């Protein structure tokens, strides 16, 4: 078999690249995924979306992504159920609040609609919040949530309609190389016996937490390691918190879904683990932040709690671009906010692959930035790891 482009990984990143390749005219694309549809982080995340961060680099990329989410249902021809319910970024510590002025200026420079939320604003936006603990707040009016099942379904159908072939249960086990180029992939039929070998002009590595393991199939490495992240959901209640909220200092995020459940999670600095089994400390830490910051949630019951796997890089920033060792091995990985950013990352990477144009918004996230000692410093994310 052959295809112009093979995409390894059918999470939201892989599907977004595939969709954008097809939209730019390259329909000879095969997406191969080792697991099942929505089985990776793309079917296990908090679904929060915002356009602004603290750094210029993150804000540049996510500003585009947020803009794309607003029009995504129309582009894909199917409702992604994006709900621009707003997004609050909260500081509880002076050191965090001290960065908010600069952050607001960065947002303005990228046309992200954000403003400082005063105590009076907070009383209106999120009456459930214990405001006495909030030192400062930034509000993104275009931020919000999109249920991952709706977004994934829309991408999947749009890809299929454009002629992209998508196969789950099809792990890639070898990447074939010749000199400084990759020339194809070999894989398993995952038990049903249909192994495959596909020649390709280019390969896109979009394997989420397994990015490093897949890169090794081509004999190369990616910076970073697999990391477990957990989230939980509370029983449905009437609408009590409209915007999505990130508590930067409590390392916690949450949002209420359209059907009334509260979804979110706290980060507990744990050793990097490769496991989808959830652990108790994340649930108790999330519950403590809810009880302290959103007291009305205290009496709600916890429906379930689960884990997903990410690929954490040394600066927690994504890896986007060609691999330094192979000009036609493209990577979109290292994502910790890869759900929100998928529409932008897929679009810009597809342009790079087909037109050879590297958009300035992806350049800072080049794979060799650590080797070049140019990590991207971002202080507005909710992540913690003991490394």
């Amino acid at each position, binding site marked *: 078999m052959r295809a112009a482009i093979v995409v390894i990984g059918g999470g939201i990143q892989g599907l977004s690249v595939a969709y954008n390749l097809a939209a730019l005219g390259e329909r000879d694309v095969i997406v191969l995924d080792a697991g099942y549809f929505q089985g990776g982080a793309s079917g296990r995340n908090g679904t929060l979306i915002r356009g602004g961060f603290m750094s210029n680099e993150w804000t540049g990329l996510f500003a585009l992504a947020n803009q794309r989410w607003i029009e995504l249902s129309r582009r894909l021809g199917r409702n992604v159920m994006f709900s621009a319910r707003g997004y609050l970024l909260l500081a509880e510590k002076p050191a965090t609040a001290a960065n908010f002025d600069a952050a607001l200026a960065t947002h303005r420079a990228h046309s992200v609609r954000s403003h400082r939320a005063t105590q009076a604003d907070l009383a209106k936006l999120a009456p459930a919040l214990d405001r006495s603990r909030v030192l400062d707040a930034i509000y993104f009016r275009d931020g919000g949530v999109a249920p991952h099942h709706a977004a994934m379904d829309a991408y999947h159908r749009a890809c299929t309609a454009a002629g992209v072939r998508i196969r789950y249960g099809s792990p890639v086990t070898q990447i074939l190389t010749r000199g400084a180029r990759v020339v194809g992939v070999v894989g398993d039929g995952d038990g049903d016996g249909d192994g495959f070998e596909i020649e390709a002009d280019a390969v896109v590595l979009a394997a989420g937490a397994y990015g490093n393991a897949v890169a090794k199939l081509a004999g190369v490495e990616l910076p970073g390691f697999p990391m477990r992240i957990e989230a939980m959901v509370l029983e449905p209640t009437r609408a009590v918190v409209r915007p999505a909220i990130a508590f930067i200092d409590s390392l916690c995020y949450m949002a209420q879904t359209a059907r009334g459940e509260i979804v979110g999670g706290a980060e507990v600095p744990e050793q990097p683990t490769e496991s989808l089994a959830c652990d108790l400390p994340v649930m108790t830490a999330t519950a403590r932040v809810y009880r302290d910051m959103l007291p009305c949630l205290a009496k709600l019951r*916890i429906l379930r709690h689960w884990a997903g796997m990410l690929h954490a890089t040394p600066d927690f920033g994504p890896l986007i671009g060609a691999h330094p060792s192979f000009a036609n091995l493209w990577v979109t990985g290292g994502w910790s906010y890869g759900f929100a950013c998928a529409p932008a990352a897929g679009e810009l990477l597809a342009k790079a692959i087909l037109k050879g144009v590297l958009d300035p918004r992806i350049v800072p996230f080049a794979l060799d930035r650590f080797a070049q000692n140019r990590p991207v410093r971002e202080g507005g994310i909710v992540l913690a790891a003991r490394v």
Partner: protein
Amino acid sequence: MYLSGEVDLDPHCERSLEPLGGNRLNADVVVVGGGPAGRRAANESATAGLRVILISRSTVPGSFATQFGVPLRPLDARVTLLPSHAAAGVYREGHVVLAAPIAPTLPATLIVTNRLILATGRRSCPPLVPGHDLPGVVDAHAALQLAAQIGASLGPTVVLGTGGQTLVAQILAQSGATVIATGQIASLTRVNGRNRVQSVEFDGRRVDCRTLVHVGPWITDPSLGFQASAAGVLRLARAAATPAHMDVVGSAAEGDESPQVGELQALRGTAVCPCMDVTVGELLSHIEAGETHIEVLKRATSCGMGPCQGFPCWELMRAVVQRASGGKAGYDRPSHRPPRRGITVEQAAGLDGFLEVE
């Protein structure tokens, strides 16, 4: 059916000044379930000089067996009993057990243990026939409890099962219930009624009644065993063997009887998961389009994502998938996730810091 509005909240409420707190216990053995098998296991471990904690949902452990007239041996005085608690989840291969009090106002308990013994018994699976989700259809456990409290108010009652129906009918009658017929659950074809049960059709006849009690098919709740033994990174799936430090005893170890499922095409409008409004027809529409992966079907339909968190709904879903795919689809379940509505945010917060992070 079960969506926002289920729980009403006042967003303006204040933080409680007295945090609830929590408990942490250490044990050599945790036994879940206070029936005959659980008591036997707990007593044996206590006799062997081990620190044993027994978790039981009832105030008096073994209430179901008692209702059945099964004599219960007394619990060894050295066994620490946590009555009116449910094991809401197990973590770290079963070495950490979350014991949640039934009362949301009491603190929860976290137990670190060497061994885990599941004596959680079996439960009767609702029959997948039209009308099975009408109020008035109850399982044997609930019926016996209800009868002990309200007896005659159950109204004319039909008891159907896989063998235990005669015994259950007798006990119900002793509690004052009016049992008008008994029979095999496999002969049940439909339950009729508008807002509650008005009649049932079984054995080729139709009987007017107000309550239908199902006594089997008996199935085990797979959730705790799954959580203790599941592994994997592409998908959590039950590991081939249960860990050496875990045992399943009593009727929970006896395996499952097959769920009672009628002719699928006639069931299109029947709910598999009443809380999330998932019908057999919805599942079939995905299966007919070629999708039989149980995790994908769960995400596509939200089956089992309401208050029961998959037990018993997923047992019915997998039976439908199995039948509709002609046996080709694997007979597996979606991942069972703790704590299954067993604990409140306040109770969970009370346990924060009690367990070292790994």
